[in-house]
């Protein structure tokens, strides 16, 4: 597909690209005066009549298509049935799923993204962001769906026409979603490794200790923990430089180091969310119950610490991501985060995590 082409009534108005696209190409399109987001899937491909392929080849490829259509219709139908649930309004669900020629396409609404850096939001704005994101995740988990690829590029910060102070998070891209405990095969399962749960990374490596049934909605909760840390501090938690991504570190039993400027209660919550054992992670309901006070989103001190060797920062986001700020000249990172009196910070906020109650 190319700019100017019309696919099933949708006229492409931007040049298709594969940035952050996984197994697809995407563009914006227009139909009847409304703009949409359109995605062209790279697989499967429906075999066309008249080719010289063998009957066996055609049958195998048609079987792939049937599985693909079933998975998309299961997830799509489940989402549409919960359209009236609290939080479902921020799920950017497929409006149109179709095949044209040999190729599958999906159309969703076009979200007008705010020209705002969510990591620079006030504590109250960050709370709104995290809670609207969590409400969307709760809708998914309530019907047993694992999003499977929670990361900043799949969380759009919507610009509202009334220019209110609060920006809701719109959750997109359910292409890697699956029913809890029923992921695709290790070579097919998707998800960004940077935000991936330890069991997902092990499953991708075909670790015999991780059966398919181990991949549940708790995997999303690990990603929620990393996303929350990123939105609150502009970075992912630190970990031993031996490991490439946080999930690898946790899988190996290494600790994640959370930003010490966060309240202790928040660090406790993030620590629980990024537990190695899925059952030890709070559910999305427990996260919503805990994340109910803007003070949990506040950072002590304004300067940010220097970038350690193994901190992880996502890139390629459609969100604006500012460059990392170093501490003021003459002050070390440790000084920059220490309270003026030099005493260790202690939060008066307390959280009851109530974990382990996943659907």
């Amino acid at each position, binding site marked *: 597909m*190319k700019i100017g082409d019309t696919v099933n009534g949708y006229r492409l108005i931007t040049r298709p690209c594969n940035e952050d696209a996984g197994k697809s190409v995407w563009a914006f399109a227009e139909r009847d005066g409304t703009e949409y987001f359109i995605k062209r899937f790279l697989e*499967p*491909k429906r075999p066309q009549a008249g080719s*010289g392929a063998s009957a066996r080849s055609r049958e*195998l490829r048609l079987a*792939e298509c049937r599985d693909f259509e079933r998975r998309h219709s299961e997830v799509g139908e489940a989402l549409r049935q919960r359209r009236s649930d609290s939080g479902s309004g921020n799920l950017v669900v497929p409006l149109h799923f179709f095949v044209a020629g040999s190729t599958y396409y999906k159309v969703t609404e076009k979200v007008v993204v705010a020209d705002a850096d969510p990591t620079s939001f006030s504590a109250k704005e960050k709370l709104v962001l995290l809670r609207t994101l969590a409400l969307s995740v709760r809708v998914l988990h309530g019907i047993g769906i694992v999003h499977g690829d929670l990361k900043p590029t799949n969380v759009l910060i919507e610009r509202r026409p009334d220019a209110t102070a609060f920006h809701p998070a719109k959750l997109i891209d359910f292409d890697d979603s699956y029913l809890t405990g029923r992921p695709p095969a290790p070579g*097919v399962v998707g998800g960004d490794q940077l935000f991936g749960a330890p069991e997902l*990374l092990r499953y991708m490596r075909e670790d015999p200790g991780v059966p398919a049934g181990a991949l549940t909605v708790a995997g999303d909760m690990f990603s929620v923990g990393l996303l929350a840390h990123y939105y609150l501090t502009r970075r992912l938690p630190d970990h031993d430089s031996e490991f490439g*991504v946080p999930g690898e570190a946790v899988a190996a039993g290494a600790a994640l180091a959370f930003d010490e400027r966060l309240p202790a209660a928040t660090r406790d919550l993030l620590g629980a969310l990024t537990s190695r054992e899925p059952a030890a992670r709070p559910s999305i309901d427990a996260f919503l119950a805990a994340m109910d006070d803007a003070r949990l989103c506040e950072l002590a001190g304004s300067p940010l610490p220097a970038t350690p060797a193994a901190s992880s920062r996502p890139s*390629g986001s459609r969100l604006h991501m500012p460059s990392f700020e170093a501490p003021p000249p003459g002050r070390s990172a440790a000084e920059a985060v220490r309270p003026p009196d030099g005493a260790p910070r202690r939060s008066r906020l307390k959280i009851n995590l109530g974990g382990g109650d996943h659907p």
Partner: protein
Amino acid sequence: MNGYDQYRGNLRYAVDIVMCIDATASMGPVLDEVKRSALRFPERLQEDMAQKRKAVSQLRLKVIAFRDFADYADDALQESEFFTMPGEADKFEAFVRGLSPVGGGDVPESGLEALAMAIRAPWERGLDRRRHVIVMFTDAPAHPIGTPEARDAHTYPAGLPRDSDALLEEWGYARSQQALMENSAKRLVLFAPDASPWDGIAEEWNMTILFPSTAGQGLEEFEMGEIINTIANSI
């Protein structure tokens, strides 16, 4: 420690890229740009993968330059081995710099033979995660694979698929039993005209992206940075 080792975690990621480059005369205006792009590619990829926090523990590049068997068989295909970056960067550079835009006669060219050779490359089968990318640079349509005129050429490679359906089977699909490519690893990126056979391949082959160019105008509408970025995005 080389530039890729620093991101080596428990999950080892191997990237193999085969660049199929049309080296016929019409590509003259842009072949130098394509070559420059190829030479810049390892460094650019290293930067991009580091930003994406993908742990590339092995990067190998291979080049297949093609012209037209039916026009002049002796230089219809020039094929390098896989070069491991950055240790064999000098060999890779020497091969790429040696390509010159000559011959080809009239379009179409022998692009499908180059693609078939790329599919049969000795791809990395080890390490934990693999990405096998074929990138086609051409401004011309291609002959159907295995035309009698091409097969009569004394340099025509033995054992190539006899028709387009056999070629598709070698590319494969998720449940394929004859594929030579590993389905979860493979990507095909075509910088080619929206003409036969490239349009059909983009429509019917999985894991394939076509960025259409204007036939005969040597990919001039593509910014090289865009091409590099597109390839990096496919990894």
